[in-house]
């Protein structure tokens, strides 16, 4: 694996605002966060998809967003990626409040999202995918040799040695495809990478490869928002952890504040028990009583904050 400093970023299309190794390492909280959400929420009509979310990611940091299906992770991504605007709260980039109307605007601010489908076109060659939407032009034509070389080099810099960048990207393994998508985002000047469940569909080995690239990206000074439902993937690479359940934050920790087991417990038990207690309380009568007891137990165990409105800001200030 080559060190990132060997290869200066080559994004000539978005002159990158130097996302190199200058950023602070690991979540020590100094300097302005690249991306910060303060009490952000999102409603779709009467449906509350997300409320009171506070989180941030700084250069050279990985913030993990954990949660089960339907926890609000994808809504969160859509807000950060510029697909949706938050209906409440503040979205700051580099300390400035922003309001994005399209993913393109987010991209122009250096915020790149790698979706689960990776935004790659399976039947197209790797290099065409790499430069899709950012083709290098030579007059009216595209500069194919330059793009092939650059693609190969850039992938090598991320430690991916492809035998042939001309092969359809669909023929790569899931992990390799993730890596191509990540290195593409890095190449085109991303300062913040949002990775949507990059390990979800992968086996153990492939997941390891992807986690390695997340660390690489961090070492290159990028801020990474790593969305996953797997605490075992999140804990080794993460600097901060945001736990979501049913659209609300059930905890926001720095790595020093939480152990892997606690994180796992929160993910596995906390969310589930929490939900169960909610349901029981909602049912009324005896069930409600049991639900309340259950809820207390959960709180005592310290594996989940009750979604009281005050809880989230408190954790946020803790985190700083």
């Amino acid at each position, binding site marked *: 694996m080559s060190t990132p400093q060997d290869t200066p970023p080559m994004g000539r299309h978005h002159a990158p605002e130097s996302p190199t190794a200058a950023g602070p390492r690991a979540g020590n909280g100094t300097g302005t966060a690249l991306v910060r959400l303060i009490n952000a929420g999102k409603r779709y009509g009467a449906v509350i998809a997300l409320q009171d979310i506070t989180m941030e990611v700084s250069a050279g940091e990985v913030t993990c967003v954990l949660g089960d299906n339907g926890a609000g992770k994808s809504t969160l991504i859509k807000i950060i990626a510029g697909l949706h605007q938050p209906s409440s709260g503040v979205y700051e980039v580099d300390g400035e409040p922003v309001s994005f109307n399209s993913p393109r605007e987010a991209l122009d601010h250096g915020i790149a999202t790698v979706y689960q489908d990776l935004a790659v076109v399976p039947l*197209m060659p790797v290099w065409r995918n790499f430069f899709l939407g950012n083709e290098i032009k030579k007059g009216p034509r595209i500069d194919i040799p330059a793009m092939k070389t650059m693609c190969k080099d850039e992938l090598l810099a991320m430690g991916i040695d492809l035998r042939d960048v001309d092969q359809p990207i669909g023929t790569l393994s899931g992990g390799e495809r993730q890596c191509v998508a990540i290195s593409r985002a890095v190449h085109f000047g991303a300062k913040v990478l949002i990775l949507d469940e990059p390990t979800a569909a992968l086996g153990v080995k492939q997941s390891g490869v992807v986690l390695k690239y997340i660390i690489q990206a961090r070492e290159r000074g990028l801020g990474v928002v790593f969305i996953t439902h797997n605490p075992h993937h999140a804990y080794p690479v993460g600097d901060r952890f945001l736990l979501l359940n049913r659209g609300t934050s059930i905890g926001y920790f720095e790595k020093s504040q939480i152990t892997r087991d606690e994180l796992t417990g929160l993910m596995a038990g906390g969310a589930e028990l929490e939900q169960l207690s909610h349901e029981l309380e909602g049912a009324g009568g005896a069930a409600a009583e049991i639900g309340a007891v259950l809820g207390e137990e959960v709180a005592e165990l310290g594996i989940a904050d009750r979604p009281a409105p005050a809880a989230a800001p408190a954790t946020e200030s803790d985190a700083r």
Partner: protein
Amino acid sequence: MAQTAQAPVAPPPRADERLGRKSPVARMLARPEAGAIAGAIVIYIFFFIIAPPFRNASSFSSVLYVTSTYGLMATPVALLMIGGEFDLSAGVAVTSSALTASLFMYEFTTVAWVGVLVALAVSLFIGFLNGWIVIKTGIPSFLVTLGTFFMLQGLNIALTQTITNQVSSPDISTLQGFSSSRVVFSGSFTVGGVNIRTSVLYWIVFVIIATWILLRTHIGNWIFAVGGHAPSARAVGVPVGRMKIGLFMAVGFMAWFTGMHTLFLFNTIQAGQGIGNEFVYIIAAVVGGCLLTGGYGSAVGAGIGALIFGMVNQGIVYAGWNPDWFQFFVGLLLLGAILLNTYIRRRAEAAI
């Protein structure tokens, strides 16, 4: 159709770290049009052997001519299919364009070229409308263009009937500018005693342009992307809607060109013409390696597909087979060409 692009043709199976085996031949076989070329060669040899008139140059020039009338349209139709959409109105759009031109120039007694330009505007507009409806409504283009197919078919007849009180356009050959238009759109020249129509040259030129756009420009990259997986293309900033509308307009443009060719060759146009040709265009594109699901194919392939269709159509007549069986043989040979095509492509994919 674009949304399921990930599933359809399973990408060639992986075979890690076995670089050296990929010869230039294997590379060529992996091209979308490889199977079609093989099919074309087989059909050529087949008719060369069984149909003596097929062997002389002037006959082949006539094969090329009929090929060009399909191939001109098959080219943009292939681009559109690579871009993930269909145009079922392509066949009647040719007639619409020719009718527009002839009725305009005749009714207003203008120089022929005026009608030609009006038809160009109308054809581009029809293409724009197809694309715009598809993009705005999200209804599959198969359905949208099926609608416009019927509408154009009806308009062709109703407007012609209303304006001329007949169902064919009036003879425009006495108008000023007719002969120059004819030279441009429907001319012919003689090389070594063989008469060749200019439409054949136009066809080849348009195939080259389309191929260049597809493989050597960013537009081509985007065409593959919007057809291969539109959400991905959108995510990296490709203007998916504009690309698709542009492709529909390219079909409109070529419908105009083909329409002008037909008009100036025959002087009048029957309002009911062109129905059914949309499938010939799509068949040519598919035989030539375009995926029905989009994102894969080539303009050269569509050209070869049109050539196969042209050779089969003419070859059967040259061979003098019982005409009652004509359609059957057309279908049989096309099916054979497609099977060979598929077989070759599978082999090529396995060899990668």
